[in-house]
């Protein structure tokens, strides 16, 4: 009997221990889940606080306003905790006084990751490349079911990171779907990122760097399969990726920190249609504009030191950074700005862009970059023109906004901006933004001058790896436009009206970052957009004989609205150049005027105590 009692006692003790252990295990899982949920809750509020504070950063004190979670956020706790309580302070040392959720805070971190009030930036390669870290904490205490057992506590902490990077970290960055079905051999050098669907195809496509995607990735299947955007060809092999670097998902990158879901073309707000807003002027109230609210200045009009507007009668209005209209009676730097830009601007020139229309001319506002160069360099020696040195050391930020406001396709008024004589850029570089289509005529930022070509332009011994004339100092520069077309050094306006066979180009080099639109196919359309190889557009008979060398970064930020005709190859539009598209890593460290940020909010190290 005693032996039986001993066995029963042992069994009882054993099952009691097992029960206690099982109970604590279940409670532990619940506690971790609650703590993780609380951290997720704080992450959402922290991200919102970052958005609201942008371009500043929320401090630890600011984040004390993050609301405390309530019991209804954790319905699974209803039968385990009768009185859910949450506090921001740490729990008392007396376990009987423990709150369900304590130490619920988000603290900014210094560069050494110690808590601080104002967060510190940890910089990467350039001024727009930095990370800011915060640590969120949540201590959860749950009672155990077994009577007499101490409550179970878990302490969770997690690092939140706001990361800013410049789009120039990518050879190609697309916010819309990205399709690459290059018709011939194409080597894409530099990182590539597609925010949404990414379609990669064709055997002769080679990537030498990381490809990442935020939406879905579709690598063209072998055999007869094809992508919805790909009209098909006999070549059905996948592209080549760098060894050990297959495409990887990366969903976090958000231009300007404004998530796509905050943009809508269908609501009544005219200032939140798409990322294209940044090249447009605001039409409504600041608070209704996600690109202007909270003191942000994300629109290029608002960021530019010079704002130029041309109306239907070719009247030119020039404004300064304070939006004051400048004129011949302006004084000081305002007069210098006025003189420089009235000299640099030519209106009422016309070309034929057969992609946009075979019947309508495109009226241009032309900006002579050589005039700006003269104005922004000291007047001396050969720099002795009428505006020489006028803007030297006057604090000009290098960002120019220019638009012809009379664009109306319905009225037959096609309008665009042209940059010419841009082979030599002023020190500090330039950023030029327009809501119109943009044409860059001739070498840009190469140092080309009469009789001196960069090696990339040579007719004999052409070297695409040398896109700059010896002795020329490369400048960081970017263009931001509805669509970007590249015209050769041989371009003439009159010739644009000729048949394609007569529009013979010459080797031309463009060393610039480009941010612009693509004419992507809509849901009810089919066909190929032209792909990233046609992100810059062409209008000449390049005929696979003449080269276009580009060193920069290409960013598709929106869909083209003004230059909105679909891609079509051949007469009367263009034939293909020898494309020498190259990623220029210099932009990571020397960023051009108008650089913007790609923001990522993510959760990093997760610690359980």
């Amino acid at each position, binding site marked *: 009997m005693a032996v039986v009692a001993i066995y029963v006692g042992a069994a009882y003790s054993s099952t009691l221990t097992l029960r206690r252990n099982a109970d604590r295990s279940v409670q532990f899982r619940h506690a971790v889940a609650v703590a993780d949920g609380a951290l997720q809750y704080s992450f959402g509020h922290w991200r919102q606080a970052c958005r609201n504070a942008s371009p500043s950063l929320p401090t630890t004190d600011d984040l004390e306003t993050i609301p405390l979670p309530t019991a209804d956020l954790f319905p699974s706790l209803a039968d385990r905790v009768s009185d859910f309580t949450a506090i921001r302070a740490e729990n008392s040392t007396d376990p009987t006084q423990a709150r369900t959720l304590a130490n619920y805070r988000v603290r900014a971190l210094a560069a050494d990751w110690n808590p601080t009030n104002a967060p510190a930036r940890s910089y990467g390669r350039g001024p727009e490349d930095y990370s800011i870290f915060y640590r969120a904490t949540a201590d959860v205490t749950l009672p155990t079911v077994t009577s007499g057992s101490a409550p179970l506590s878990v302490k969770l902490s997690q690092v939140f990171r706001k990361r800013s990077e410049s789009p120039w970290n990518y050879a190609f960055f697309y916010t819309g779907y990205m399709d690459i079905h290059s*018709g011939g051999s194409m080597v894409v050098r530099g990182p590539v990122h597609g925010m949404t669907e990414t379609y990669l195809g064709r055997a002769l496509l080679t990537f030498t760097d990381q490809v990442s995607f935020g939406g879905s990735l579709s690598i063209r299947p072998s055999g007869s399969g094809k992508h919805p955007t790909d009209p098909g060809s006999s070549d059905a092999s996948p592209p080549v990726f760098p060894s050990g670097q297959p495409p990887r998902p990366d969903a976090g990158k958000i231009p300007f920190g404004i998530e796509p879901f905050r943009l809508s073309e269908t609501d009544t707000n005219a200032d939140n249609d798409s990322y294209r807003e940044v090249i447009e002027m605001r039409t409504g109230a600041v608070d209704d504009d996600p690109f202007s609210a909270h003191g942000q200045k994300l629109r290029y009009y608002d960021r530019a030191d010079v704002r130029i507007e041309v109306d239907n009668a070719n009247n030119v209005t020039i404004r300064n950074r304070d939006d004051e209209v400048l004129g011949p009676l302006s004084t000081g730097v305002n007069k210098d700005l006025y003189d420089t830009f009235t000299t640099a601007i030519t209106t009422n020139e016309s070309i034929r862009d057969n992609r946009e229309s075979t019947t309508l001319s495109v009226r241009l506002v032309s900006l002579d970059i050589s005039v700006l160069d003269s104005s922004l360099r000291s007047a001396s020696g050969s720099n002795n023109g009428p505006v020489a040195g006028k803007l030297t050391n006057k604090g000009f930020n290098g960002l120019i906004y220019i638009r012809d406001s009379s664009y109306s396709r319905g009225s037959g008024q096609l309008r665009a901006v042209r940059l010419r004589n841009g082979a030599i850029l002023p020190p500090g570089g330039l950023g030029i933004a327009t809501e119109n289509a943009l044409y860059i005529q001739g070498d840009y930022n190469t140092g080309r001058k009469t009789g001196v070509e960069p090696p990339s332009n040579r007719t004999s011994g052409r070297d695409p790896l040398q896109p700059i004339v010896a002795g020329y100092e490369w400048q960081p520069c970017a263009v931001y436009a509805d669509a970007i077309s590249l015209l050769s050094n041989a371009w003439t306006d009159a010739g644009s009206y000729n048949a394609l066979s007569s529009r013979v180009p010459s080797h031309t080099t463009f060393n610039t970052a480009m941010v612009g639109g693509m004419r992507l196919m809509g849901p009810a359309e089919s066909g190929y957009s032209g792909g990233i190889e046609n992100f810059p557009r062409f209008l000449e008979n390049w005929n696979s004989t003449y080269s276009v060398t580009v060193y920069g970064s290409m960013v598709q930020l929106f869909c083209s609205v003004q230059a909105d005709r679909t891609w079509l190859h051949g007469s009367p539009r263009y034939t*293909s150049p020898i494309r020498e598209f190259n990623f220029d890593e210099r932009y990571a460290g020397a960023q051009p005027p108008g650089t913007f940020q790609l923001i990522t909010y993510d959760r990093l190290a997760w610690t359980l105590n």
Partner: protein
Amino acid sequence: MDSQLIRCMAAVAVLSLGGLANAGINFSPNDGVYIGEATPFRCIRFRDGNAKIRFFPPTDWIFTTDGNKCAFRPPRLVQAGGTFAAKPKDGSKPLSDRMEELLRKGMPEGAEKITLVMTGLPQVSLDQWKSIHVEATYEHFGQTFRIALVAAQTHDEEIHARFGCRATDFDKVFPDLLESLGTFTWEEIESPSAKSVNASSGNPGAR
């Protein structure tokens, strides 16, 4: 007559007839595919002697053969249509001086309240050939119609593109047709003696 001379004249006549037979634009439309940057694009092709003409029509328009002409009409629209036709070159007067006469030929008998627009309209080139574009409106049986004529002279022919529809529909459909005329491209020259010497699009795009 000397028999050798007769043989020479006969040979010349045969060659001339052969040349004529080979010369005219045949506006019977044929479906075609143009490959650009390895991407196929649907197009319409016409024959022009030893050359082919490539044309990208407006979306969903219907093109058929009508004798030696090409007839076409826009989708979902009644009382609307047009033709492409090739005519012998008329050297009696410059084309510009004959446009009104040619335009009036497109009006039915009994047309009244005719208004001609002979200048100021958008112009289009058919490949290297500059065209002239004129329009007219008229009333017929109580309805107002608007017609357009786009005419261009090639080396030895005239191309007449005509279109007409109810005036209220004209601006909805004609601009697309006019734009598409700009895609006329003479391609694939098979012989250096071919009359339309234009190789602007001979390159199908290697890249």
